[in-house]
């Protein structure tokens, strides 16, 4: 970390001598249109992860936790499978599924609804949406596991008492499940936020950040600046910015969720 901060004030090609650059790298970032684009893209990914993936994972976990569900372990396995699959395999499969001209999804949409082909990977808007779909697919099952563990720890008598008092399913979910899952939710939200703010795999394997940087993430930008452009100082400066932003937002969320505070404080 100290080296990264030191590096961010230098120009360095990865080998050879470093040159002092002062705040030059940070100034360059501030003026860079590409940096603004990748920050904006990353915000989209984080927003989608926190506002779509987390609630969806909670809903699926709640459904899997219901009494009388058959094949619960099978569904858990199915939802968790994307996490353990190789990114190379995912890339291969998803690029085939999402291709505009030869993709299975477009073929299905055309066959079922007569829709014209959608350029999922080649259009700036759809490329971002495709990355979000991949995030959804890869992360939801992973988070379901955490929520399931949290749900199992909620005492059954709370639900029984609420049921005796006439509380309906939605009210039980709202007044028992959500408050009791608060520590797990805090953990999940902060974990997802930190992970997705550094998202690299999904845009890299699906679109390589294209077209025209439309789906490039901040982590990809840092990778490209360091290992493609050989501007290690500039990349370090972007990395420091990412760290500071993620750290501050995580701390804010931790406060909002009351992480580390005793109940009743």
């Amino acid at each position: 970390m100290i080296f990264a901060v030191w590096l961010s004030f230098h120009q360095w090609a990865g080998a050879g001598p470093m040159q002092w650059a002062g705040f030059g790298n940070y100034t360059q970032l501030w003026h860079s249109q590409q940096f603004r684009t990748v920050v904006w893209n990353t915000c989209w990914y984080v927003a989608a992860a926190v506002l779509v993936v987390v609630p969806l994972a909670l809903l699926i976990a709640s459904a899997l936790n219901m009494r009388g569900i058959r094949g619960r372990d099978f569904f858990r396995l199915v939802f968790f499978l994307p996490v353990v699959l190789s990114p190379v395999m995912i890339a291969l499969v998803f690029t085939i599924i999402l291709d505009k001209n030869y993709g299975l999804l477009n073929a299905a949409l055309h066959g079922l609804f007569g829709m014209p082909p959608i350029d999922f990977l080649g259009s700036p808007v759809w490329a971002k949406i495709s990355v979000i779909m991949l995030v959804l697919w890869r992360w939801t099952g992973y988070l379901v596991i955490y929520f399931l563990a949290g749900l199992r720890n909620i005492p059954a008598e709370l639900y029984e008492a609420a049921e005796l008092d006439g509380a309906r399913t939605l009210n039980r979910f709202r007044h028992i499940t959500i408050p009791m899952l608060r520590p797990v939710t805090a953990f999940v939200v902060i974990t997802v936020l930190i992970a997705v703010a550094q998202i690299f795999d999904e845009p890299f394997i699906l679109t390589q950040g294209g077209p025209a940087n439309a789906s490039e993430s901040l982590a990809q930008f840092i990778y490209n600046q360091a290992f493609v452009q050989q501007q290690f100082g500039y990349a370090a400066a972007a990395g420091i910015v990412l760290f500071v932003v993620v750290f501050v937002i995580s701390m804010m969320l931790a406060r909002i969720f009351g992480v580390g505070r005793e109940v009743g404080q």
Partner: protein
Amino acid sequence: MDVSRRRFLGYGGSGLVIGLLTPAVAACGGGSSASTATSGKVQLSLWVQDPGLATDLQRTAAGQTKPFQYHTTTVVQDAQDLITKALATYSAHGQVPDILGVDITLWSKFMTSDLAGAYLLDITPHVASIRDEFYESRWIAYANQGQLYGVESNFPLTPYYKRTDLFEKYNVPEISTWDEFLQVGAATHSKHGVYLGAMGQTNGVDLTWFGLFFQQLGGSFFTESGDFGVDSPEAVQALQLMMDLVKSNSYQLMSNFYGGAGTAALAQGKVIGNYMPSWYESIIVSGNPNQKGKWAITLPPRFSTGGHISGIWGGTGWVVSKGSPKSLAVWDLLYQTRLTLDGQVADFKDSYFLPTMKSAFTDPRITSYADPFLGGQQTIPLYAKIAADSPTQYQSEHWAAMTNALAPEVDKALLGEESATSAIKNAVATYKSNA
């Protein structure tokens, strides 16, 4: 002029020993001494992005017993990662590769701060007597500050590939210019729903198609003196042609050219031709081996405004790490493989790597070769014409900055978001602010 190995070892080799010993000894100033191996068993590490590229060096190594007996270990990694890893090991004085394959678009990394001069063997004096026997453009591709460092593994000359059976079926006529190509392509697509070519989006890194058209037109990303060359009418014209090709449905635009989509397009006979470098044949073969005998190559269409017979894109230069006691052995292996007529012939026959040595293009062992995948076509006479007029790709340490500025603008133009003129103008502005 044939270059004999004896002559090399006698003249160049002895000079090389002296040349290598100096930095080796200087580098070991701490007390340990390294002596350059001149014969015997040698263990070599070979780093490359494509195992296919290493086969020729491995073949030479396996067949040679004097003066060196080689045992090679090969490290295969993505081209980008390979260079990053190599630079890290050079910087940290770790286990550096004895021979490193450098993708031509990544050579600029060694130009930065003259890392080439610091870490790689300067082969300029060692090839001085044979330099003219090879196409100069392939030496220039791996040079820095006037010194040569790399030996080209393959001459990526660019023909037009076509499916002969489908061209006949759809009555596609002979095409001599890109203007004609646009008309014929549009008509063929409108009648039969097929494309005469395909190109991929750059996704921020891949300038293959722009590079082919731009360099065919006589444009150059960088001039001989290293100045930025994209700010030119040729760049606008090349990009405009790409846009027209896509818009007219002569070409299909793909987001995943080298993946499933590209393979499917060929397999389904939707894309029935392509203007691509010689290495494209291996891509067709690996994805669609059942199309053996159905393909042929021709000279590509020309620009009516002038330029070269064809463009060029790709290449991997073999470079040798500097200061190693094994450098003489490494250089001898490289020399036997790529800098002798026999080596070039063997490379072509075994791996279909096109020669860079001028006389190889008239060697009967090569000229008589009939490519089975291309229906027994004798391709070398055609490649010889292209080679004689091949563009030179001048390098710059700002290559990555150029790619970073240009690639997104090419994508935007192909998506119809910008005109060719404004895309090039924006790319130039971005480059100037970043480089």
